[in-house]
């Protein structure tokens, strides 16, 4: 047996240098402990790549946020200059083609990953008690993500953008009773005009991202609070032994808790 490290040993000079600011911060805020609590959680032993889809979606969102902030430094949300500013970003600015491409294709990646993540949660039955609220928040996040796509699509202000938005807004307009009010609100008027562009810009970069960030925070809080589910084929329930014996499958085998032939292995 190797000797245990002596806890009372004085740390090296270099270590002290690293730890001093961290200790200073921890003593005054508890932030280091909070970050540790967030990152070093217990998860079931048999989680796999499927469980990384959520953080992949988060990463895609962060890419969108960062590239979007940078694009906003050059984009001009004005009917007379929007198209030209996009052309300027793509063709003239150094690496503009790359950042715009990251934002443009990253948008699709974000939506695709949202769907994959939702499919994983659905097929693993991870939306069940006590995680229903997190599923509901996830659905709202999906809707907000698609709204980001809808509002962002107008911003290049070319023919595709314009007519896609015409069709999209008129689709909303066919909703019974309130549809035309909704579409007139989205257009800022009876027809698409300059304010439609600025309105979509504000929605795209301020209002909807704000909602997304707030709900992602809530989503993560619930993930930390409730823990990660094991896969349906797992034979340990949520990473620990059940206090009571497994319930009889009773002839019904579902997707989430399949009863292997010959009972549960323990």
């Amino acid at each position, binding site marked *: 047996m190797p000797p245990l490290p002596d806890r009372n040993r004085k740390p090296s000079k270099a270590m002290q240098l690293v730890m001093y600011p961290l200790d200073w911060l921890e003593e005054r805020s508890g932030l280091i402990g909070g970050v540790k609590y967030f990152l070093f959680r217990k998860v079931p032993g048999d989680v796999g790549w499927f469980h990384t889809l959520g953080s992949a979606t988060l990463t895609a969102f962060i890419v969108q946020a960062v590239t979007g902030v940078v694009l906003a430094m050059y984009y001009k949300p004005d*009917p007379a200059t929007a198209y030209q500013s996009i052309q300027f970003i793509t063709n003239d600015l150094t690496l503009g083609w790359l950042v715009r491409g990251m934002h443009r294709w990253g948008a699709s990646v974000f939506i695709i990953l949202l769907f994959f993540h939702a499919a994983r949660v659905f097929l693993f039955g991870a939306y069940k008690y006590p995680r229903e609220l997190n599923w509901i928040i996830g659905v709202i996040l999906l809707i907000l993500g698609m709204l980001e796509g809808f509002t962002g699509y107008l911003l290049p202000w070319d023919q595709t953008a314009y*007519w896609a938005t015409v*069709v999209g807004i008129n689709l909303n307009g066919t909703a019974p009773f309130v*549809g*035309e009010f909704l579409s007139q*609100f989205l*257009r800022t008027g*009876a027809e698409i*005009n300059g304010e439609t562009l600025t309105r979509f810009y504000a929605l795209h970069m301020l209002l909807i991202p704000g909602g997304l960030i707030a709900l992602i925070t809530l989503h993560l809080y619930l993930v930390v609070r409730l823990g990660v589910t094991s896969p349906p084929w797992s034979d340990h329930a949520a990473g620990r032994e059940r206090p009571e014996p497994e319930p009889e499958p009773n002839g019904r085998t579902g997707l989430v808790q399949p009863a292997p032939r010959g009972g549960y292995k323990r």
Partner: protein
Amino acid sequence: MANGEGGAGPGPTIWPIGFAVGIVCILVGLIVSTAAVAAGVLIAAVFGFLWARESTREYRGTAVPAAPEPEEAPEPSMLPAGPPRPANEGEAALPVMDDAEVERYPRSVFLEVSTLGLGALIGGLVTLPVLGFVVLPSFEDQEYDDVNLGPIDNFPEGKWIITTFFRDPAAGEVSHRVAYIRNNGNLSFTIISNRCAHLGCPVQPNGLVAENQRKSIRVLQDKQRAAVSLTPASPSGFGCPCHGGQYDTEGNRTAGPPVRALDRYEYSIVSRNLVLNKPYSVAHVTGTGADAKIKAYPLTGPGQHVDGVESWLYPIQPPGR
């Protein structure tokens, strides 16, 4: 107060509020009018006097109408029995109060309600104008201005002319619109909007378009020069590139997803110029040209039925058109 310590203070009075109103009146009056200053001085003096009288009553030996005293002695259970305990041992060190006991502190309830109420008031004062600013401009002043399309001599009888114009020249390209216009003779015009009745894409003429005979003219509109282009065409109908809706030359749907006929424009002829007035929606057209019988409705968004059972889904259109 509850255990009688320090005697009963005076009950809550309204005099300070009146005094404050007087002060506000003076301050406002300094800007607005001298009469308000006088009124403010009067109010502040009267209420200040009453306030001072009220709060000095105790020292002047008059009976003090106190806040209602507890009628019974505090219940024994409320008082800590035996020697004092450390706060972290046993039951909660604070006395357990039942609901009736809490009732005796109306000031805390007052503070709670007034904090919430004031918060709601301030929140509302901030939110409501902002909300109005977000929503109302979308529903105000949405009237369609008249559009001058130039002399009617540019529209030969029996010929279709693809007419492009600016609904609002000041807004620029975003107000670019297209109408298909046919002179039926005898000052009758068929003017069909190119907005598809499905989801609003631009319908195209099915047939030859004489691009080489395009004529660009300048007209006076809203006190500025606006461009109008006139291109002869001989369509056998109209078709939408987005989802394949098809229409005949009167704008009736012949195939595809549209829910009604193409919209039309009212028009007038002012000093031999063709002028577009408000657009309107059409359920169906029977007959052609000058003899057409048009089932007209107020302008409705694309994809919405204007007649039949389905129109019950769209009972109210937004105001301001």
